């Protein structure tokens, strides 16, 4: 992938992000922040790439593994905690019916 096309990807991704969060009720700000935060742990893919490419290089394997650990801590924790918050809202609506 050429650098220029990666820049295009960056630009379009940013615009998408700006558009997606237009009108959010304040109720959902905290869960949304937490969910978006979990997605930022996508950097785990970079850590995985590093580990795969590092076969034979133990220090690099360790760095990659630690990085993967941090990222998954972010991802798994983030999604679980968001789900816990949102479960409280959905319980309310289902009780009503």
């Amino acid at each position, binding site marked *: 992938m050429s650098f220029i096309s990666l820049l295009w*990807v960056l630009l379009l*991704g940013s615009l998408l992000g*700006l558009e997606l969060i237009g009108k959010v009720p304040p109720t959902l700000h905290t*869960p949304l922040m937490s969910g978006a*935060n979990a997605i*930022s742990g996508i950097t785990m893919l970079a850590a995985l790439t590093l580990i795969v490419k590092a076969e034979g290089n133990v220090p690099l394997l360790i760095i990659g593994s630690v990085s993967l650990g941090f990222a998954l801590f972010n991802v798994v924790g983030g999604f679980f905690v968001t789900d816990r918050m949102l479960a409280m*809202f959905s319980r309310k609506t289902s009780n009503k019916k």
Partner: protein
Amino acid sequence: MNLPVIIKFVIDLLAVLLLALGIKGLSKVKSARDANRLAAFAMSLSVVGLLSYYLGTSGIGIQSWIWIIIGSIIGSFFGAILAKKVPMTSMPETVALFNGCGGMSSLLVALGVAIFPISGGQENFDFFKSLINEVSISVSIFVGAITFTGSIVAMAKLQGWLSTPGWTQSKVRHFVNIVFAVASLIAFFDLINGNISSIWLLVVVSSLLGIGVTLPIGGADMPVVISLLNSYSGIAAAAAGFVVDSQLLIVAGAMVGAAGLILTQVMCKGMNRSLVSVLFGGSLSAQSTASSGSGEYTNITSCSVEECALTLEAANKVIIVPGYGLAVAQAQHTLREVTKKLEQNGIEVVYAIHPVAGRMPGHMNVLLAEADVPYEQLKEMDVVNPDFPATDVVLVLGANDVVNPQAKNDSSSPLYGMPVLDVQEARTVFVIKRGMSAGYSGIKNDLFDLPNTSMVFGDAKKVLNDLIGELKDLGVGEK
């Protein structure tokens, strides 16, 4: 293109689509929970896509598998444990911690690639060949480090482990931070010149910059900072995407970065603070002690729980104004029992939620939802403000600055211009409070001096429990 490349391409495309749908769905109450799961699914899908790509092309060595498994298990385990155990009141600090770790991950990837140029593999993985790679590595390290140390400081301050040191409120801090920033720039240019060892300088000074920028910010502004750092961790992920040449990372990182910025803006608006004053203005309480020295109360009316119960019993419409103090006292469940009794007596009860009630926008909604308060009873500030003149009783529980009429009346007040709940318009206001201490901003609350305001002193949970007893004695909610 061979088959593994095509498969990965399709999976990546699908993952981006699902992530975008996930973020979109998170902005509606109905779809939010499914959307969160959809996003989680998209993330797992992207991992499957990446691993199958390497299995189909270069293969994954046994050593790599071992380290992948070790890292995954440890990270996921602690993440899941923390997410399950943490109390809902500590949500902002938890998000900060998760966020910081995301930043750390991006930093480590860039660091690893920089200090161990990898040979072999199908692609040419010699990253230091081009300027672009050096720039993206530097950005990833710089933003990642700031995200990490900034988030940790934010968490420590919210937890009360760290206070705001006095020197950080003086002008010295700007000088110190400028030194750090300049040092980061020097390290960056040195790195581009081919001096790889200056990468350590970059790591150290950008970490210090993260601390130096976050430390002076007062606790009340911390949610804005966390939201901004959340945006940074997206940028760090996008930078890491440039480092390992992954479009998926760039798109997802950019989406989170942009969305985080929007959310930050929304929060600033709710608090009537500009982003610049949050970042560079220092702690609000430090400014206000100088400007509002006229902080003596002259006309405080204190009343007993019994009087409060009698007034409540006679009311037709009651509005509850919950604040963070309520959550800290773990009193939201007790509050729910009180309101249940009132409702059984035919009294209309709604909750007025200020945009920044709690410690983050929406935090109070989560806390009340935890206590089974029906979603329909939570009213936003703009909706509920016209209702106050027709309201008999307002109960202010652990909220302070968000009900301060100074924000409307006193142009010299640091709060002036902040949107507040017009509780003073109601017939009677009860403020349940431990003592006369000031709110988070450290500013005197003119509400307490008004003739229709009565203070009920005591711990929120204890007062509410007593209130339940009094209401029982009055026969409220017995039917």
